């Protein structure tokens, strides 16, 4: 549905987006991650046709966003960063306006407005002027606008920004549900969101794609991924470490906690794929030693760790300049 090829944008001498390519198919929810100023919003603005790319191309549903802008834009629903809306209008007036400009009329329009009002819980403020609303309501009003024409493609720039935890949960559920039939790109700073909503994630840093994969694939890139956390009762951590180090396939063992009630060690295998075999071997060892095992599991890895290791060095360098 969305095909981004070699997208580049420079503002004067500054290269904001540099050769970004990816595709999103129907039924996919693509999470867009990256530090502030990495080029996430600029990329989204180019995909939605707000700013033209310096080079490269975007096609939405087969329509080039520059060459045939109108048919491409018809397919897109867009929630810009900070969720702008016309403050002098009421929620109902604003939604009716966006529906009209999308070409909806009569009953169809009324139904569309009713549908998004229900989906975004806006009944209570329908006839209130937007400037009198709290941030959460304003955000949802703009979100409602983006789905009013039931678009095939949704581009959401930080859709959960400024919402309370309940609202965040609602929006995530909504995105996940809509992701079954649409192609969705959304950017976020919240990593749990990526794990709970996305079918795929892209990490972008200093204008370039630095990682692209499913959340579990990305997590596998974490140092922690594949490590085995082992908690045993009544054995000192030191002994645990010595014994575990002798098991075949162990690269290193770190002590997490030394406590007679339950010592914890983390065991890193030689290779991440050998984690399961190693976990089995550790289990057998515990049986032979008659240890009271409280916990034995393979770590999935952590997205925040991956995010940091991929993006941090460059951010630090940037700061030093």
């Amino acid at each position, binding site marked *: 549905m969305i095909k981004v090829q070699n997208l580049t*944008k*420079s*503002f*004067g001498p500054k290269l904001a987006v540099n050769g970004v390519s990816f595709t999103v198919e129907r039924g996919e929810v693509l999470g867009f991650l990256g530090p502030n100023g990495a080029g996430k919003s600029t990329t989204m*603005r180019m995909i*939605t*046709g*707000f*700013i*033209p790319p310096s080079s490269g191309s975007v096609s939405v549903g087969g329509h080039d966003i520059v060459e045939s*802008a*109108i*048919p491409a*834009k*018809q397919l*897109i629903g*867009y929630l*810009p*960063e*900070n969720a*702008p*809306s*016309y*403050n*002098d*209008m009421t929620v109902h*007036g604003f939604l009716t*306006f*966006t529906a*009209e*400009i*999308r*070409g909806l009329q009569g009953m169809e329009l009324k139904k569309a407005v009713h549908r998004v009002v229900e989906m975004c819980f806006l009944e209570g403020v329908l006839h209130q*002027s937007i400037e009198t609303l709290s941030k959460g309501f304003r955000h949802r009003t*703009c979100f409602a*606008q983006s789905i009013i024409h039931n678009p095939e493609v949704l581009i959401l720039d930080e859709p959960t920004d400024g919402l309370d935890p309940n609202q965040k949960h609602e929006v995530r559920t909504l995105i996940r549900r809509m992701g079954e039939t649409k192609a969705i790109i959304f950017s976020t700073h919240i990593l749990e969101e990526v794990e709970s909503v996305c079918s795929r994630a892209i990490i972008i840093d200093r204008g370039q794609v630095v990682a692209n994969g499913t959340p579990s694939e990305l997590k596998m890139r974490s140092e922690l991924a594949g490590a085995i956390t082992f908690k045993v009762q009544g054995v000192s951590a030191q002994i645990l470490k010595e014994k575990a180090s002798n098991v075949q396939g162990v690269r290193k063992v770190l002590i997490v906690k030394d406590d007679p009630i339950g010592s914890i060690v983390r065991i890193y295998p030689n290779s991440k794929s050998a984690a399961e075999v190693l976990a089995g071997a550790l289990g057998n060892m515990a049986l032979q030693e008659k240890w009271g095992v409280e916990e034995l599991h393979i770590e999935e890895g952590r997205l925040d760790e991956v995010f940091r290791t991929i993006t941090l060095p460059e951010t630090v360098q940037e700061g030093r300049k």
Partner: protein
Amino acid sequence: MNSFSVIKTITKRELSGYFASPVAYVFIVIFLLLAGFFTFMAGGFFERNEASLLSFFLWHPWLYLFLVPSVGMRLWSEERRSGTMELLLTMPITPWQAIVGKFVASWMFLALALALTFPVWITVSYLGSPDHGVVLTSYLGSLLLAGAYLAISCMTSAMTRNQVVSFILSVVMSLFLILAGWPPVTRLLDQISDNPRLVETVAAFSVMTHFEGFQKGTIDLRDIVFFAAIIGFSLFTTSIIIRSHRAG
């Protein structure tokens, strides 16, 4: 959706935006008060002792100088400041439709304010028998004049997200269009230059020169083309400014 209904939708939204806030009512009241003041106090309506609206229309270029930019200054700068421009221009519409829609809305608003001056016409008709044809062409000229100023405001408003800057720029540009044909200035030009063509050329750029004909009851195609050209040129420049902002 066809171009016309897109423009209509944008115009409707923009117009309702005016009336959703007190700005519209304040503007209309001030406009009517000032128009009345200039006509009856400064313009010497009664002293003229003639059944014409000359003293009413005479002041319009000056009245519009400040009032029209106050209507037009928010057109695009507000969209840029609040970020709604991103919303508007990612809708399935062309920038041109948005520009025209917004311009037409503010022009209609000004037309409404102008139409509300009808009591002056009634007063004159009651007191004597004015040439209604002249009054009509004067109204037409006044409307075109307002449109020209408005298009300039539209352009300056696209240049900045600051409404005050937009207002000042627009006043300065409009003032130039007045002064180029204002008698004190043309006289001065006459004195310093012996080339009569110079005065003529400069005066040809003035709204005063082109508004004059309408006040006398003549509709000259050249005058209409002049105002239409200012509107067309300013709106075209607006579209270029908007495009260049997006291009970064």
